[in-house]
């Protein structure tokens, strides 16, 4: 499998049509589905935004962050701190403030981590995320291990997020906007430079690109976008706890990106929906005899992840690509 094929940046026409159909389905979904499933879909959209933000690092720039959930959680906490006990807070200023908090966190941590490469980057991003986790976990003033309730969802005029349908469409709009923004960014000079860093950082430096600045900018931007998702998560669930920043959350995001296919943002969306659906399917497994198969969902998820890595390391898109090529070869 050639690198170019595996790294699908330009989406084929068929895939674009499929994405448009998916968007239509999401637009119509609240009218046909139960409240509960619409809420689940909104949750998946939030995770899709989170996965896309990680894809900017993992798929585009080639930086595998195992601590991306820290920035997701920071914005959720920012919303929790900004929401007063007795009333709703304005969406207009809390959303930018929460995103800024995440971006600032990513900027500070990024200043240290983007100096490192490869395996160090993985370990160090994970370690710093754990530092943020323990900062909130250990301090009662920051909510401690129990987390904080957000009693009122943010509101601004017609955008009253307390209304479930408004929340759904607001999230969908954010998803579409983030996707459009990242697609444009991917083909902008900045995005090309990031892709260049993934392919060969030394060559980019030799050509005069300050790769440290580019990587730090990408890390900060990805952190801010993860914050956007974290804010929506906090608003939807009405509750934040340190688990949001935990290392399982970060690893799940990596898995979403891998599952869908990296480097084009569409894969991250597909992967987020696929991963979450699978997670719920595993958790809902019935008990067989005395053995509660749903309770042991981690076993199935673990086996699934191992199988994907062993047999389909380039994600579902890559697997499809390989199968199609084998067929092509047979046809020739």
């Amino acid at each position: 499998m050639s690198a170019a094929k595996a790294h699908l940046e330009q989406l084929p026409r068929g895939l674009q049509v499929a994405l448009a159909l998916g968007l239509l389905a999401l637009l119509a979904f609240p009218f046909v589905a139960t409240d509960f499933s619409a809420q689940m879909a909104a949750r998946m959209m939030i995770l899709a935004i989170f996965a896309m933000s990680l894809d900017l690092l993992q798929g585009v720039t080639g930086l595998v962050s195992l601590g991306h959930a820290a920035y997701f959680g920071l914005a959720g906490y920012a919303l929790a701190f900004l929401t007063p006990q007795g009333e709703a807070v304005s969406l207009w200023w809390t959303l930018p403030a929460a995103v800024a908090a995440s971006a600032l966190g990513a900027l500070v941590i990024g200043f240290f981590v983007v100096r490192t490469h490869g395996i160090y980057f993985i370990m160090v991003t994970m370690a710093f995320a754990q530092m943020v986790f323990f900062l909130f976990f250990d301090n009662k003033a920051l909510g401690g291990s129990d987390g904080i309730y957000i009693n009122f969802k943010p509101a601004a005029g017609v955008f009253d997020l307390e209304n479930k349908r408004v929340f759904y469409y607001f999230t969908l709009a954010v998803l579409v906007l983030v996707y459009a923004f990242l697609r444009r960014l991917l083909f902008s000079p900045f995005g090309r430079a990031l892709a260049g860093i993934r392919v060969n950082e030394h060559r980019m430096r030799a050509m005069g690109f300050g790769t440290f600045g580019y990587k730090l900018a990408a890390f900060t931007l990805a952190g801010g976008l993860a914050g956007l998702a974290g804010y929506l998560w906090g608003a939807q669930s009405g509750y934040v706890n340190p688990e949001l920043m935990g290392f399982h959350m970060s690893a799940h995001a990596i898995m979403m990106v891998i599952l869908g296919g990296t480097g084009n943002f569409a894969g991250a969306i597909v992967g987020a929906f696929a991963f979450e659906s699978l997670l719920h399917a595993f958790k809902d497994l019935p008990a067989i005899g005395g053995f509660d198969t749903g309770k042991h969902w981690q076993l199935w998820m673990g086996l699934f992840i191992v199988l994907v890595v062993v047999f389909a390391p380039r994600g579902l898109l890559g697997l499809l690509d390989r199968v199609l090529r084998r067929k092509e070869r047979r046809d020739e």
Partner: protein
Amino acid sequence: MDFANFLIQLLNSVQYGLLLFMLAAGLTLIFGIMGVVNLAHGSFYMLGAYLAWSLAAKTGSLALAIVLGTVLSVLFGLVLEKLLFRHFYHRDHLDQVLLTFGLIYIFEEMRSILWGDNVHGVPIPQVLSASIPLTDNLSYPVYRLFMSGLCIALAIGLYLLISKTRLGMKIRAGAFNHEMTEALGINVKLIHAVVFALGVGLATIAGMIASPISSVYPNMGSQVLIMCFVVVVIGGIGSVRGALISALLVGLVDTFGKVLLPQVAGMLVYMLMAAVLLWKPEGLFKQ
């Protein structure tokens, strides 16, 4: 802080540092020689603690449990290497991260199915249950001294194995130049299996000897794994000497941080890592 108190904290920090070294040494060796990042390394620590608990309950002796557990874990390491890890030595770090993350889930659930989700305690063996009195009301438990002693013995053993024996020479040669070593007729695959099993064995022993003082609980591997990452990053990946020095440093900072600056204790170790990264992005003893 008076002298007796200081001495207790110092001994605790050395004991914690040495325990971290047992884990970090395996992690750094496996990475340095095979190029594999193993997130499931913390699971071996947990496995060790549960093995110690269940075997000690069955045999009635922690010492016997440790011997049996070590044999079992080395066998487990060999099987795991042969079935899975061997095929990932030349793969992307990303694939290794995902594989070993999947393994964490699998190991946790196997633990849950085999041993349940309860917290357990392992009694300290009778002969080591005494305490050495330092002042009228302060004393230091003999078991902790025994732990440190055992870790030091194993560290010396590891040093002798790597630098003085024929096997150690082959390990170093394999790490330095894989193809050349193989061309000289040395079975590098076997060496890799041995190193992997050694890493698993050290992590499991760490879990077993820590079980009487830390209790045995689900997910006990994750926190220790991240501390090991910090140790390995500070020490420099692949360097066993770096891991030892950095583990002792982390032990000191963590233990004294909790006493002197309790408000920020959880973050101090990470700040130490940040400072080292600014100064030497590849760790103190990068090979």
